[in-house]
């Protein structure tokens, strides 16, 4: 549905997007991840024909964003990052305007507007002036305008920033729901969102593509050791000595940022991938006379993956592509 080939965007001497390629299948929800200023918005703007690429190409449903811009624009719904809306208009007037601009036929218009308003939960707010709406409702209006004309592809740029937790959940549900029947590209830097909604993720950093895969595969690829998280009360030196003695343990990391309630400290024990050292660890801790408060398997969260792939210190490691 979307094909991106060696796409680059340069602003003066700054390479905002540097030679990235990926494809999105029909009906897929693709997470588009990256730190701020990684080039997410620039990429989306090129896909929506707002800015032309410096080099490379992007196609939506076979139409090139540069050469067949009008055909592409008919097939996309776009929600820009800061949800720019005409604040002096009423919600239903605005959506009516958008439906006219998007060439929705007179006959279908009323039904379509009703559907979109219902779907985005705007029924009670439809005659209010957009400028008086809360951020959450403006976001819904933004999504509603993207949905008008029933585009095959939806491009959403950070649709949940600035919302309260309840609104975030609602918007996520809506996006998940939209995934049935639309191809969705969702740009964000909120990671749990991606693991919850997206089939696959693209991670870009400093304009370059660093990963393109499903969350599960990325986790697998980056897991270098079997990890166990433990919370132990007692002297750290003795614990280290006890754990080092266990066969198969490679390293022990202290996690000082994790909660140290009840005097316990959290560690992550790295062991060889194919070994199971959990029982041995537990025994060693207890035998050393230390208090074992908690013990559970530790899996890489998307945060860890993200940091591993985008952090400067682990740059070499992060180059791995699947």
């Amino acid at each position, binding site marked *: 549905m979307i094909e991106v080939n060696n796409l680059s965007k340069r*602003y003066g001497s700054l390479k905002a997007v540097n030679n990235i390629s990926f494809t999105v299948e029909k009906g897929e929800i693709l997470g588009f991840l990256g730190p701020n200023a990684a080039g997410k918005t620039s990429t989306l*703007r090129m896909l*929506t*024909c*707002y*800015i*032309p690429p410096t080099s490379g190409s992007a196609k939506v449903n076979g139409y090139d964003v540069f050469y067949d811009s*009008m055909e592409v*624009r*008919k097939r*996309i719904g*776009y929600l*820009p990052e*800061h949800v*720019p*809306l*005409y*604040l*002096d*208009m009423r919600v239903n*007037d605005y959506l009516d*305007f*958008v439906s*006219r*601009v*998007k*060439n929705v036929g007179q006959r279908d218009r009323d039904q379509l507007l009703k559907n979109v308003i219902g779907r985005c939960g705007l029924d009670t707010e439809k005659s209010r002036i957009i400028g008086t709406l809360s951020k959450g409702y403006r976001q819904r209006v933004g999504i509603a*305008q993207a949905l008008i004309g029933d585009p095959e592809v939806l491009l959403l740029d950070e649709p949940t920033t600035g919302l309260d937790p309840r609104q975030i959940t609602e918007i996520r549900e809506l996006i998940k729901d939209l995934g049935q029947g639309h191809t969705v590209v969702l740009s964000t830097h909120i990671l749990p969102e991606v693991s919850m909604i997206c089939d696959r993720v693209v991670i870009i950093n400093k304009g370059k593509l660093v990963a393109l895969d499903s969350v599960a595969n990325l986790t697998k690829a980056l897991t270098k050791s079997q990890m166990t998280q433990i919370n132990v009360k007692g002297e750290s030196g003795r614990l280290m000595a006890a754990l080092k003695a266990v066969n198969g343990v490679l390293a022990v990391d202290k996690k000082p940022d994790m909660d140290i309630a009840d005097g316990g400290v959290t560690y992550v024990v790295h062991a060889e991938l194919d070994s199971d050292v959990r029982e041995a660890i537990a025994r060693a801790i207890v035998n050393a006379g230390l208090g074992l408060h908690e013990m559970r398997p530790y899996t890489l969260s998307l945060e860890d993956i993200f940091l591993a792939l985008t952090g400067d210190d682990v740059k070499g490691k992060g180059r791995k592509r699947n």
Partner: protein
Amino acid sequence: MRNATVIATRELKSYFASPVAYAVGFFFLLILGGWFYFITVATQHEASMKGTLEVLSYLCIPVAAVITMHLFSEERRSGTIELLMTYPLQDWQVVFGKYMASIVLYAFVLALTFQYPVFLGIFGSPDWGMVLTGYIGALLLGASFLAMGVLSSALSKSSVVAAIICLLILFGLRFLSAGSIIGGALGEVFYYLSFSGQYNNFSNGLIDTRDIVYVATFILFSLFVAVRVIEINRWK
């Protein structure tokens, strides 16, 4: 064309939803009405719109600047242009739609002054043909200035800067007529470019194809450049 109409309709609604239309109408009528009284009733005692329309050729300039200043700059400032430019619309349709909206508002405000010739008709016997061509001239002059306003608005993210650009260009052009005192061919050129020649012909009841061609060229040139400016902004 249909798309341009959609844009124009939205802009017009927005004019009347904000104080712009009413403020422009108020000041337009205030100044022009005062001048009409001063020129026609208090001093000249002549049943003609000529003196009143003369001042209109200057009053048009700030009016055009105020009506058009936000058209593109506001969209760029608030970011709404990003959505507009990703809808299936050609750039010229957007420019033309906004331009049409500004002309309709200007024509509406101009129509409010039809009461003056009505008074002239009640208390005297004006030359109706001259009144009519005078109004056609005022409309064409306004249409030219508005086109320049649309272009100025495309040039800046700030409405105020856009208005200043528009005022500088239009007053600059208008005062070129002063250059005509140097006489000769150059003087002619100044006089011609300043809209004075065209406007005087219209208010004297004369419709000359050359004047129409000048106005049409000016409008098309301004709008064409505006479309190009918007295109360039995408590449930046």
